[in-house]
């Protein structure tokens, strides 16, 4: 994508969610988690799936980061940067609403 190189920053109280027409499914035949979107399909690795699953529109970005840092015992700053990069990338492709 053509997004600028500046590090993505997402407001702590943003409530990311999948827009209508985008959904995450688990499919054995395709070998795991897949993100389905208008005429596009993306394979989601385990980490991406863990992040996207939490984007329900209810949990805030800060809460999602807390939850992931807690669940995987990883440093919060690192988790925040990784999650922000992933979510911004999805938003750029219109696969996520922030």
């Amino acid at each position, binding site marked *: 994508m053509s997004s600028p190189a500046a590090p993505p920053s997402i407001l702590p109280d943003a409530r990311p969610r999948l827009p209508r027409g985008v959904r995450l499914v688990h499919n054995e035949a395709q070998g795991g988690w897949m993100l389905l979107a208008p*005429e596009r399909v993306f394979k989601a690795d385990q980490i991406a799936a863990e992040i996207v699953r939490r984007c329900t529109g209810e949990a805030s970005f800060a809460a999602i980061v807390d939850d992931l840092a807690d669940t995987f015992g990883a440093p919060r700053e690192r988790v925040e940067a990784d999650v922000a990069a992933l979510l911004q990338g999805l938003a750029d492709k219109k696969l996520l609403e922030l």
Partner: protein
Amino acid sequence: MTTDGRPNGHAGGNGQPPKPLHSPLGLLAELTHRCPLGCPYCSNPLEMDKRESELDAAAWARVFREAAALGVLQVHLSGGEPASRRDLVDIMAAACDAGLYTNLITSGVGVTEERLRELVDAGLDHVQISIQDSEPKSADLIAGYAGAYARKRALAAAVAALKLPLTVNIVIHRANITRIDELVAMALDMGASRVEIAHVQYYGWALKNRAALMPTRQQVEDAVGRIEPLRKQHHGRIVIDAVVPDYYARFPKPCVGGWGRRSLNVTPAGRVLPCHAAESIPGLEFWSVKDHSLREIWERNPAFNAFRGTAFLPEPCRSCERREIDFGGCRCQAFALTGDARAADPVCHLSPHHHVVERQAAIQEDAAYVYRRL
């Protein structure tokens, strides 16, 4: 996405499927070849299936269940004009019940607001509307249908009002290629979150109309050059996907992601194809869902195994470092332009037949369109 292409057996071999085989991701369901429009680049074959031969809704329901069991995630309900089927809502409901992500690919003519609502209630996920130009008169002339432009805009408004995601598909050729900016602006105005700028692919009807559709090299370069600036300009508002103009490319496209690799196509009468143009290649026998399960066809139909992987490829593809990227290009195009479906796609500048493409691209005639008619 995984992208490994595995070499395997040829047509007429022992019928054993290569292992392991990819599961298809997408199914193009051509519900009917009937359509009110007559676009001169229609992707339907020249020999179309008649209404009497169309699969009924119960047969489609079985196909969708078998597709889901095979790993298919998305179904594209297309045609012809899918709304030409009176039982479209039943067919949509069956696709949704099978757990598939559903995409309605429509001309926009024949889908009333009421029917759209019924389709949404049945579970429709996404709509793609084709539109021929941003100039109404030109759009109607290309479609061969007076008033088509206005009806497409009206359906797009209804889709937007229901907050359904919308893709606008625009096929690009000589009559509209100078308006890429206007076409993207129109898609935004229609409420689309995604637009396909799809340069004509020359098969079937488009091949028949090639000289009337062919743009000049300068026009193609200008049009392709607009895509990145437009992506920057509309970043975050609309996704712009571009299908490259084949005849002016240096390398061929990995057609449908590789033959029998990621997708399959079911014709109105139930024949299963690796792509919508596959029947243009003689000597391949395509099986029908009336006689076989989708899994049997995917794994065992010799026509599906004919060009899987890269082992069938002659030089210059066989030793090419791009052979696992584009699989030597498109089999239908190789056949259409060289008479040999195994040959390198002559779009490739390395093909010994590339001069055929260069010669054809140089022929532009302002001839009247031969409209697609059933």
